[in-house]
């Protein structure tokens, strides 16, 4: 597969301290290590008792952290820190849907799910994807938020009938800004698919050709269940997605998604939640397969957890389970639960539904458990400290 690389954007490997921002069912935790990535210190919990779907450090300043939180009783909000989590403030106006006109049924936000910093040319811009599906934008680093009308009022994207079907409401699977152009965006949506905007969210077009769906579709452009969407920053016309119905790669010049999960071992399959990319190699990606057979138990496959890596854009896959439990380990990794750092070799990390965080300093060849006994892990984001 031909890939055009813009060598001027190729980053040098990172050499600094690494922090893992871990969102869990009961709060946020930070795991910090020096450059050797051998000794990890656990910090937290922050917001104990809050359901934290996502905690993200702004790569543009290396200091601002946003946290998407709610509790079982209290409504959803966003907390923010500008000093790496030393102190926190709540967003002055967190995302919320507009109040409906008299006699109409309004939408109610269940939780903030996916946080994404905006383009490097727009410091302070962030996006938030919420459930039921809504898109919000902040221009002041998360203090105030406004709905993106082109998304939130788009009947094709926010079909109310399906929004309440999944437990906790339909949610996001990615918000991506093209590193070449702040107005060019992609989003991934559970139950609907991948969409593209060239006008910073004012309008959206479906981008699902080649994807499969194991259910009838009224409109072949809509109805695909994207679990995790990634774009490669060095090859911004290449996207990958882990979908409910397989693993896919899209090279825009080819025009349609290719099911690269067909090359996975048949006994493992290509169902799962997360997919992450090597920051300097657009042909390398990791997934963490789960059991997509029978009743979809949402465990790893056969109680024998393993990551799989491709080094050739999905032509072949290699199992990576050295150091992981060999049997009877029934946890899973959620869609935001896997991440990579930018060191050389790449560090790969994932958090599990039974509260462990695992890491590899050698691109997945060997795994070490970094921490146990946390609450259920929803998200892991590896970041470099400023």
């Amino acid at each position, binding site marked *: 597969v031909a890939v055009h690389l813009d060598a001027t954007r190729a980053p040098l490997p990172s050499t600094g301290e690494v922090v893992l921002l871990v969102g869990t069912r009961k709060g946020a935790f930070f795991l910090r290590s020096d450059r050797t990535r051998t000794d990890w210190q656990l910090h937290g919990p922050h917001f104990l008792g809050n359901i934290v779907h996502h905690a993200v450090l702004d790569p543009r300043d290396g200091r601002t952290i946003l946290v998407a939180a709610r509790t*079982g009783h209290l409504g959803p909000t966003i907390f923010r820190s500008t000093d790496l989590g030393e102190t926190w403030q709540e967003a*002055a106006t967190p995302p919320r849907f507009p109040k409906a006109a008299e006699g109409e049924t309004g939408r109610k*936000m269940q939780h903030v799910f996916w946080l994404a910093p905006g383009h490097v040319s727009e410091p302070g811009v962030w996006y938030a994807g919420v459930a039921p599906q809504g898109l919000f934008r902040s221009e002041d680093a998360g203090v105030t938020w406004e709905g993106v009308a082109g998304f939130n009022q788009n009947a094709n994207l926010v079909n109310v009938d399906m929004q309440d079907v999944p437990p906790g409401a339909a949610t996001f699977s990615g918000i991506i800004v093209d590193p070449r152009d702040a107005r060019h965006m992609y989003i991934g949506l559970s139950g609907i698919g991948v969409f593209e905007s060239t006008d910073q969210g004012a309008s959206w077009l479906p981008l699902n050709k080649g994807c499969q769906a194991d259910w009838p579709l009224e409109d072949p452009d809509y109805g695909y269940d994207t679990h995790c969407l990634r774009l490669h920053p060095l090859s911004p016309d290449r996207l990958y997605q882990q979908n409910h119905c397989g693993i896919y790669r899209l090279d825009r010049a080819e025009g349609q998604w290719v099911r690269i999960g067909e090359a996975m071992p048949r006994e493992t399959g290509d169902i799962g939640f997360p997919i992450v990319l090597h920051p300097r190699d657009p042909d390398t990606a990791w997934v963490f397969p789960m059991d997509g057979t029978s009743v979809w138990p949402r465990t790893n496959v056969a109680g024998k957890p393993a990551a799989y890596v491709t080094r050739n854009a999905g032509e072949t896959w290699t199992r990576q389970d050295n150091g992981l439990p060999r049997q009877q380990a029934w946890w899973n990794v959620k869609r935001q639960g896997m991440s990579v750092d930018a060191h050389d070799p790449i560090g790969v990390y994932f958090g599990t539904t039974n509260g462990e965080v695992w890491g590899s300093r050698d691109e997945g060849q060997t795994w070490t458990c970094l921490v146990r006994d946390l609450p259920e892990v929803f998200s892991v984001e590896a970041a470099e400290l400023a």
Partner: protein
Amino acid sequence: MKVRVPTHLRAYIGSAEVEARGASLDEALADLDRRYAGVRFRIVDEQDDIREHIKIFVNRRQVLTLATPLHPTDTIQIVAALSGG
């Protein structure tokens, strides 16, 4: 009127009981939100419905709407409903 505050909201209000003003529950919660920014949206959603697991009592009787009229001598109790196993 008095407002009794559950532990869940102490990060905002800081004490178990505060005074609020207003001729309705809506006005009383707006008064609290002016002084304790953000607290209203944690217990009332964007359609002005009391959140599913929050219950509000006025003089020991549960109320279901923000339009509930209030008198200065009333006592409001905000309760985080018991749930889970």
